[in-house]
């Protein structure tokens, strides 16, 4: 062992001596053989020659000793690494191109995989997340509908497959605590809800069924954030009573810092709820409002199918006991919470992943063709090295190392790029991913990236080695580095065609997504958001709201001021309920839902919505007069097709007695407006019913203020004016209505920007590939082109020659790309708006741009070709 270590030591650090020693030893051997030959009668020269021949070459012997020696691996590795980096340094364009191509490919992959990881692979941060399910009902024309307390109670009574069924409803309320009144999010939950999502509170306890008893004091669980902000992180808060609205409530617990609710977007359950209060589970009344989002915990992880079946039969039973749900298509469904959370984004993520994989493949193909071209250029050098005694293994090792240097540098670049890309993606805050919380590059992603890097290195290394295997020593030496007019190989044609095909598919996808975004920009949402400022306020009653409306209207430059319970396109909360028209049979009641909005007079004019028939609300539309409503055109058409809706009656829930004291009521239609898109820009989700504020008072309202033009000091003027009322009214979310609309466009913008970036990268890579391969082919054909020019070929003919060479793979690529797109683009359909996945316009544009761009990429090599001087070209031969 000692001798071995010493040997490695000597080999590494006294290499010079060791080499001299070896040389002397082998030479001595040859000389001694020569001595023998001379003794046998040969001349000195003859003896020397025969001795050398017998020994098989001094260098070869030395090399075989080196190869065999201990430390050889290290030394060769070191040598090759050194050689490899030196070679790469000598050819920095090649090195940088290779590193960047891989870096971009792998980096984009890392970023997207991190998303994948945190969105699809990482389990939800709850105890036994695989047991949690969403329970949704379908009835009438609403799928994924919320449940009433009656339904929750009935399901709980009957279910065996679920060991817990809980409900939550999130609403805007005043925050507990002293100081300025402030609006926040209250989670109204059944007492068994929080334990499903959190093992134990950070302080205190969760709700008990005792808290729901009739005479129990009001109890509250605080979020960590609220506890720190409003109560100074005081642990003695537990058990004390805090001010809450006009009453008080006992704080019984504080949630851990990292507690988040991760629900599907349409559940209207935001991730950060400020505080929770419990709601008693009871039979309630069968026709009560449906507002609860239900969550069930399965008894075991395999129970989802059984639970589905059970819910089917429970739905039938509930229907039979004469509930609101007595409709033929009332169903209950359970979905795994994790799957349901990512339902909307899963497709998008897979698509992104596919697109990024394409970019990576293009990068790979590029590096492979680069290496291939290089290895052919270096054929002469390789041949000489082989002749000088380098074993094939050693040559392969050397190429492998050079490749690995590129790949690992590429991997390092990728890690940085991926990190930056992830930061950028998070900064854009794609809306559908917003509730997925903290995303960071983790070790698994790191491993994934390097797995990719290694995998590529093997593939890429195979490319040059395949030419090495065909090495004919003597033949190649004879040619002695003279380039032949060999045509570009089939392999490079295939590689370039592949690159073009993948880039083409990405281009088509981008075209479709960009067109979608353009279409969304053109959508008329049913109101004019320009020059409208919005803010949220918490108001005690109608009089204060009216007072505020009048005070704000007095601000110079303000056209009109009004108020609404839910701003359009601001999906942070919703109020929707069943409605039916006068004379609807019982079976049709409680089947269809509309979005309900409580507004002040002047709302429609202020946001720029269009009144089609009838009149707006007036100040005298209150509980004391006739109860009236406005509806949108869709509802009017649906309920009274071909008839005038004005003067007809409609049954809805309102609360003239006070906030949230709902009762069924008949309202007379006094006006019809054009539909206002209020959930997404691209779809009408539900019809709309507008109620005058006195019929549906609520503490949390949004003010809308239309001005004559841009009014720079408006926000502060509005705040000052509200403070001047001296009513202690909290104002939050002061922002132009236009930015609310912008947010609604964010998803589409995000997708089209990302797709555009990816296809720009892909195009650049592909064009780089075309350029590189063609440039090289011009170099290879220098002699041929020289001869052609010498015998009188014109410049145009030479250029045509080069272009023909380039357009063959491009054409194949476009053909393959078109086929691939036709097959794959329908997958994009759910992201598209007002454009078909097979849009001929997009295809045509993509084909034209690919042809034009690759023409540009070919121009430089073509120009270089006509600059070839026939004399020099021939002299080189």
């Amino acid at each position, binding site marked *: *062992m*000692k*001798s*071995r270590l010493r*040997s490695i030591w000597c080999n590494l650090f006294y290499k010079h001596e060791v080499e001299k*020693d*070896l040389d*002397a*030893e*082998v030479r*001595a*051997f*040859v*000389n*001694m*053989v020569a*001595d023998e030959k001379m003794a046998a009668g040969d001349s000195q020269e003859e003896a020397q020659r025969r001795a050398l021949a*017998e*020994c*098989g070459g001094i260098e*070869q*012997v030395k090399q*075989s*000793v080196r*190869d*065999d*020696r*201990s430390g050889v691996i290290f030394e060769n590795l070191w040598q090759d690494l050194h050689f490899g980096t030196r070679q790469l340094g000598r050819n920095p364009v090649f090195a940088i191109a290779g590193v960047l191509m891989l870096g971009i490919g792998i980096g984009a992959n890392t970023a997207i995989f991190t998303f994948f990881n945190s969105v699809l692979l990482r389990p939800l941060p709850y105890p036994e997340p695989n047991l949690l399910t969403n329970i949704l009902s379908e009835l009438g024309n609403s799928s994924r509908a919320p449940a009433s307390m009656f339904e929750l109670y009935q399901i709980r009574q009957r279910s065996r497959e679920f060991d817990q069924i809980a409900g939550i409803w999130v609403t805007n309320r005043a925050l507990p605590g002293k100081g300025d009144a402030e609006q926040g999010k209250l989670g109204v939950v059944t007492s068994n809800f929080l334990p499903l999502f959190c093992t134990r509170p950070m302080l205190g306890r969760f709700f008990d069924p005792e808290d729901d008893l009739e005479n129990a004091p009001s109890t509250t669980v605080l979020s960590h954030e609220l506890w720190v902000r409003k109560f100074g992180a005081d642990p003695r808060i537990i058990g004390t009573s805090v001010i809450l609205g006009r009453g008080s409530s006992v704080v019984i617990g504080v949630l851990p810092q990292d507690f988040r609710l991760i629900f599907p977007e349409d559940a209207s359950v935001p991730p950060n709820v400020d505080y929770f209060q419990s709601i008693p589970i009871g039979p309630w009344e069968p026709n009560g409002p449906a507002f609860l989002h239900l969550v069930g915990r399965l008894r075991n992880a395999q129970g989802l199918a059984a639970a589905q079946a059970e819910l089917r039969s429970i739905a039938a039973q509930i229907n039979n006991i004469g509930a609101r749900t007595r409709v033929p298509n009332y169903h209950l469904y359970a979905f795994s919470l994790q799957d349901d959370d990512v339902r909307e984004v899963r497709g998008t993520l897979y698509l992104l992943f596919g697109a990024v994989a394409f970019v990576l493949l293009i990068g790979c193909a590029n590096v492979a063709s680069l290496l291939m071209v290089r290895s052919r250029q270096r054929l002469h050098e390789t041949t000489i090295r082989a002749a000088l005694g380098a074993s094939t293994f050693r040559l392969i090792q050397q190429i492998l190392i050079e490749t690995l240097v590129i790949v690992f540098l590429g991997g390092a670049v990728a890690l940085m790029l991926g990190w930056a890309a992830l930061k950028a993606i998070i900064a854009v805050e794609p809306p559908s991913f917003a509730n997925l919380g903290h995303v960071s590059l983790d070790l698994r992603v790191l491993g994934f990236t390097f797995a990719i890097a290694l995998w590529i290195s093997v593939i890429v290394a195979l490319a040059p080695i395949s030419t090495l295997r065909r090495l004919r020593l003597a033949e190649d030496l004879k040619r002695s580095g003279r380039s032949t007019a060999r045509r570009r190989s089939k392999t490079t044609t295939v590689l370039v065609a592949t690159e073009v095909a993948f880039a083409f598919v990405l281009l088509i996808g981008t075209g479709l997504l960009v067109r979608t975004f353009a279409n969304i920009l053109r959508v008329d949402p049913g109101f004019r958001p320009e020059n409208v400022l919005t803010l949220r306020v918490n108001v005690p009653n109608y009089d204060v709201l009216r007072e505020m409306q009048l005070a704000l209207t007095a601000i110079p430059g303000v056209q009109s001021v009004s108020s609404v319970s839910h701003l359009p396109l601001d999906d942070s909360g919703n109020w929707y309920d069943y409605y039916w028209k006068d004379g609807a049979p019982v079976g049709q009641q409680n089947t269809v839902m509309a979005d309900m909005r409580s507004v002040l007079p002047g709302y429609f004019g202020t946001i720029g919505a269009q009144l089609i028939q009838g009149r707006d609300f007036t100040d005298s539309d209150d509980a004391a007069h006739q109860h009236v409503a406005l509806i949108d055109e869709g509802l009017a058409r649906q309920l009274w097709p071909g008839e005038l809706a004005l003067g007809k009656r409609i049954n809805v829930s309102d609360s003239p007695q006070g906030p949230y004291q709902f009762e069924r009521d008949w309202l007379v239609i006094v006006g019809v407006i054009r539909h206002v898109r209020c959930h997404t820009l691209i779809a009408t989700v539900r019809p709309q019913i507008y109620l005058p504020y006195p019929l549906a008072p609520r503490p949390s309202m949004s003010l809308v203020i239309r001005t004559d033009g841009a009014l720079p000091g408006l926000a502060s003027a509005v705040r000052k004016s509200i403070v001047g009322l001296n009513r202690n009214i909290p104002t939050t979310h002061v922002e132009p209505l236009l930015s609310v609309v912008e947010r609604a466009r964010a998803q589409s913008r995000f997708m089209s920007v990302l797709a555009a970036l990816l296809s720009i990268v892909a195009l650049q890579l592909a064009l780089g590939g075309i350029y590189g391969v063609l440039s090289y082919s011009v170099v290879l054909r220098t002699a041929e082109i020289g001869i052609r020019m010498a015998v009188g070929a014109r410049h145009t003919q030479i250029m045509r020659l080069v272009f023909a060479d380039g357009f063959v793979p491009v054409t194949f690529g476009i053909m393959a790309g078109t086929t691939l797109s036709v097959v794959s683009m329908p997958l994009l359909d759910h992201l598209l708006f007002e454009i078909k996945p097979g849009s001929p316009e997009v295809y045509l544009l993509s084909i034209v741009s690919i042809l034009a761009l690759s023409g540009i990429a070919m121009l430089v090599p073509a120009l270089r070709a006509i600059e070839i001087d026939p004399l020099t070209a021939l002299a080189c031969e």
Partner: protein
Amino acid sequence: MPGNRLPILQGTLDLLILKAIGDSEFHGLGISRRIEQTTCGAFHVTPGSLFPALHRMEVAGWLLSQWGESENNRRAKYYRLTDHGKRQLKTETGQWKKVVLAMANALKSI
């Protein structure tokens, strides 16, 4: 001579070299010639396989080398066995005998 030359069996080269050196000291050519002599020319060790083997065995600690003068006044590197090398010779010889016996038996039984 080339007529009765045999290829060197895999794994036997080390044993041949160790045995050729024995208790004395030889340079490379000496070892090569001695192997030829003792095997009546059946085995011819080329420098391409001799030197790697010598260096390997030196690294393994079986051989010690030292520069000296040859009979023709040439500087040459001389190899001799270490104690470890002698033990190795004994083991390998024993093993070889077993191999020969086993092979002989195997061939006899056919």
